[in-house]
């Protein structure tokens, strides 16, 4: 027995650490200046999958869609205990909204054995929490969102506790099923030292290609770069360190539903939230200052 788990993860800008420089002069977000992180609740989804595998057997595969730089969190997942990592990268997937993203991810998940599909509750860059439920619909499997605790699991059914804001529900669901996991569900295990030693060298082919190009320098013959990249990929593959890399063709995705073309939502306008600052009335922290403030609030009927 055992359960095959697929965990969908995202490499996101750390929106909790946005600083002044992170906004460009035109008021748009300067993504380049933001540190990138493993989306926090995806770590809880990964931990849940690893806990199931460790207790009941099976496997854990992680999938991320993004630029080759997202290889970083695939490596981290391997270090934390994942068995397999897949980088889904394709320029034609750029500018996908949640619908197109869920379509593409569902095509990838279909290529992997899955009794359980796990996602973080939401990603901190968009906070939409939409991709999980949309994937479940595309996969034709049920979903349980806001999962806080796994209570039971047998061959056909899972029992979980989910948060509903002002309380909780205990739900039984038929497998295969998709879960979105909350940060309160568990404490993600740290990467294991032994696994770090092994997997820090793991690379996806797109990362290898970039490293090969850097190694040979800007004047190198493109064929030589390709040959070097292939050589390096072969070496990694031999040691089990080549991260799977899939394009939209590899997952048989219909391009109609991918990227900007497959995305019904369009941005009309972006405004940055500018801290005005200095426009409030300052009252000194003295009896006199406080009296003046209270008098004013009573005067305009705000209090009293």
């Amino acid at each position, binding site marked *: 027995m055992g359960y095959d788990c697929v965990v969908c993860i995202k490499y996101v800008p750390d*929106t909790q650490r*946005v600083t002044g420089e992170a906004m460009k002069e035109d008021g748009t*977000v300067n993504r380049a200046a933001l540190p990138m992180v493993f989306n926090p609740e995806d770590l809880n989804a990964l931990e849940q999958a690893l806990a199931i595998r460790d207790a009941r057997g099976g496997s854990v595969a992680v999938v991320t869609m993004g630029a080759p730089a997202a290889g970083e969190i695939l490596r981290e997942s391997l270090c934390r205990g994942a068995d397999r990592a897949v980088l889904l990268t394709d320029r034609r997937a750029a500018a996908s*909204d949640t*619908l197109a993203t*869920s379509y593409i991810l569902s095509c990838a998940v279909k290529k992997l054995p899955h009794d359980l599909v796990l996602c973080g509750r939401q990603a*901190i*860059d968009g*906070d*939409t*929490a*939409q991709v*999980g*439920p*949309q*994937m479940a*619909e*595309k996969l034709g*499997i*049920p*979903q349980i*969102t806001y999962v806080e605790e796994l209570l039971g699991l047998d061959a056909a059914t899972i*029992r979980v506790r989910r948060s*509903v*804001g*002002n*309380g*909780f*529900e*205990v*739900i*039984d*669901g038929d497998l295969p099923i998709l879960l979105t996991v909350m940060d309160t569900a568990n404490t993600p295990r740290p990467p294991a030292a032994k696994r770090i030693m092994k997997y820090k060298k793991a690379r996806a082919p797109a990362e290898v290609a970039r490293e090969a190009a850097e190694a040979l320098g800007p004047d190198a013959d493109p064929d030589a770069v390709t040959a070097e990249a292939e050589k390096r990929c072969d070496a990694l593959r031999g040691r089990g360190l080549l991260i799977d890399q899939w394009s939209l063709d590899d997952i048989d995705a219909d391009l109609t539903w991918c990227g900007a073309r497959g995305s*019904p*939502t*369009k*941005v*009309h*306008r*972006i*405004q*940055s*939230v500018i801290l*005005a600052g*200095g*426009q*409030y*009335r300052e*009252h*000194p*922290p*003295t009896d006199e200052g*406080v*009296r003046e*403030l*209270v*008098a004013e*609030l009573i005067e305009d009927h*705000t*209090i009293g």
Partner: protein
Amino acid sequence: MIDVNRQGEVWVFAEQEDGRLSDVPLELLSKGRELADRLAVPLGTLLLGHNVEGLCEALTAHGADKVYLADDPRLEHYQAAGYRRVICDLIEQHAPQIVLYGATPLGRDLAPTVASAMWCGLTADCTDLQIGDHKPPGSDEVHKNLMFQIRPAFGGNIIATIVNYDRWPQMATVREGVMALTDPDVSRRGEVVRCAADLDGVAMPLKVIDSQRRPKRVNLKAARIIVAGGAGVGSKDNFRLIWDLANCLGAAVAGSRAAVDLGFVDHDHQVGQTGTTVRPALYIACGISGAVQHRAGMGESAKVLAINNDPEAPIFSVAHHGIVGDLTDVIPRLIKTVRSGAAQKT
């Protein structure tokens, strides 16, 4: 996906639980009314459940012209599969131009699956909706009278306006508490459209084994004055000051996420992106630095008084009045002044 239908109605999903409507659908109806009037189309509402016909009146009183009622024992407890089927069938049949859902745990579970099944767009957690025109970059075509779906994004650092001009309906979830709840008008009349729920062959793969909900003990949304404390309050003992100030003002007590995480105050009191959104007449922020996530929950307050010992704290950017100082010193002075002021008046 349905085609663009300019005559399509505006719809609001009427979330109910155990036969009771929450505030969200009613808030959405007042916004929906505004959008429907602007577009000169009827406002419809979708009521799914079992033995819920009694709720139609309240929906009509809050602005609905039509209530699409699907009453079926299989819809008594929410589950995405059944609700999705009924809603998708209704959308295909009536081709509404807009469908709104509350951004509640249920709405955020349901709406994405409807969007996925319909291959249409969905914008999460909107804080405002407007009607306007959109010209796609590089195109001469102007799409008139679209729903502008306005929401904070990127951790609240930007405000994005999203449109969906080709694959309809235009759908959005809307945060609880951001749309004003208007008073019901019991003289309003509406039509109840009974809809058969075609659920044969729809697998119901989930079973609710237990459900525990405790009513929110704190009604921050109704409070005229809110006194809120953050991490800067320092300790649960110091948080007593927040309660004292609230008591003498007849105010409700709130906390930032940091204050809740530190155990100073219960989660029911949390204001901000993951808590309640409030719009009181006066919001007194004590020892709250004012992270974007917090400001998202209180930025609509009519007046904000910030008390903080850090003059650079972002909370001052949304404040109308500010006191830079130690709150353990300032709050007792405030309490003393308010009490003496009240004494003078009586």
